[in-house]
């Protein structure tokens, strides 16, 4: 009995003290610092292949679907990105009164934002005073600047690989953040261990886990290495959407205006986080019972 108790205690303590699988970073809400998340099991992305700066629709769809597959193939996560058939006339933006539509659109006539932005990802989430429902993502749009930038799906050192770009942006859509601090976000984000993420500069001081991750802050024309995920990217996804918590719901986000104003779509607590504590408590209780000879 004492061996079992000892092993149980040791196991629980090891679980408590064990280092995390990777140093991933999740995007957090401005007010409470909660990680942002999708409530359902699927995220529907509706692409537009119009105004794509010379790329053929099949090339674009191939890049989008391959980028989504990189995230969908992570076996320890339940979340699925569903790239639907392309539609014409899509526009980025969010409306409270209708079913939110997550779009991927190109702009090759007028880029209404800063010309230094090659792609812009906008995430709309619900803020709440309740930690359990703070940060639910209700809309995410990716806009690609084909006015000032050239994209490719077949390589080329002077062009940006579309799949490389979209794989990274889909990471943001899913609620993941950059792996180092480029000074753009205040306060400096923290990783899954609670530690402030390191400065991006100088890049040579950063470990490969950070610079090789798909969610690393920087990319270069011709780069294709972020088409595929690295261990930290997968760890981040699985922490956000662990397979054990699959809600088994694959539907678009319903209109937000029809919800109660508190945004009460509560999310189940992560059993993974509570498990070590429960094991420890169980072990201590057994030990106490053994020493005091009492029964419940």
């Amino acid at each position, binding site marked *: 009995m004492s061996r079992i108790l000892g092993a149980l205690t040791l196991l629980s303590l090891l679980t408590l003290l064990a280092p995390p699988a990777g140093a991933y970073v999740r*995007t957090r*809400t*401005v007010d409470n610092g909660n990680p*942002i998340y999708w409530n359902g099991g699927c995220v529907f992305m509706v692409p537009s292949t119009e105004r794509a700066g010379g790329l053929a629709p099949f090339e674009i769809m191939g890049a989008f679907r391959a980028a989504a597959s990189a995230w969908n193939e992570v076996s320890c996560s339940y979340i699925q990105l569903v790239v639907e058939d392309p539609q014409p006339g899509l*526009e*980025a*933006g*969010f*409306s*409270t009164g209708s079913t939110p539509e997550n779009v991927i659109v190109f702009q090759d006539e007028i880029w*209404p*934002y*800063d010309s*230094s*932005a*090659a*792609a*812009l*990802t*906008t*995430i*709309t*989430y*619900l*803020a*709440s005073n309740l930690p359990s429902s703070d940060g639910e993502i209700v809309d995410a749009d990716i806009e690609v600047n084909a006015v*000032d*930038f050239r994209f490719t799906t077949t390589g080329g050192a002077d062009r*940006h690989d579309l799949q490389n*770009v979209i794989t*990274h*942006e889909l990471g*943001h859509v899913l609620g993941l953040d*950059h792996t180092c*601090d*480029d*000074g*753009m*976000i*205040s306060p400096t984000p923290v990783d899954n261990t609670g530690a402030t993420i390191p*400065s*991006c*500069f*100088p*890049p*040579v001081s950063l470990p490969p886990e950070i610079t090789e991750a798909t969610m*690393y*802050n*920087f*990319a*270069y*024309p011709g780069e294709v290495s*972020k088409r595929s995920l690295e261990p930290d990217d997968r760890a981040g996804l699985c922490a956000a959407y662990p397979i054990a918590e699959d809600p088994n719901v694959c539907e678009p986000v319903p209109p*937000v205006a029809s919800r109660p*104003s508190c*945004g009460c779509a509560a999310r189940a607590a992560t059993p993974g986080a509570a498990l070590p504590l429960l094991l420890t408590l169980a072990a201590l209780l057994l030990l106490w019972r053994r020493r005091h000879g009492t029964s419940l």
Partner: protein
Amino acid sequence: MRHSPILLALLVGVVPQPAHATVLRGLSLRQLARGSTLIVRGEVLSRSARWSGGRIYTKITLRVQRSLRGKSARGQVVSFWRLGGRVGRYVQMVRGAPSFSVGDRVLVFLSPRAHRLFVTGMAQGRFLLRGGPDPRSTTVHQGLAGARLLGSHKALRGPVPLVAFERSVLALLRARPEPRP
């Protein structure tokens, strides 16, 4: 320590090549300065967000302490916009957009778009000031601006003295445009 404007332009002005984020093309200090119609230093007085066409924009007002480019006098209030913000229970997050808090002391590069002023180069055109209030003891901070990464992966010098930074900006504005290759 005296900083040469040209050296500062090299140290401060070159940021990493395209940053995903929002994917941003790195702008040099020269590009930031030349691409801006208004360059001002001051204190953030307020920020307010509103919906416009499915997007949230936040209006920031700033009391000018010094103008490096454009017509705005000391004490004048300048307004500009950023993408994203919060309206009621909705928060729109645009990575790469500059963030501002009331009371921040900043130096911003601004340029017009659709009849409104925005920060040039998104977050790249916002520099946070620390120390002071005497400009001689104030430093300029901007993560990306501290780097030099054009291919060679060198650089980063940390905070830059405000006086030297402003001198560098003014020198870049006075300099003749470089001939096209």
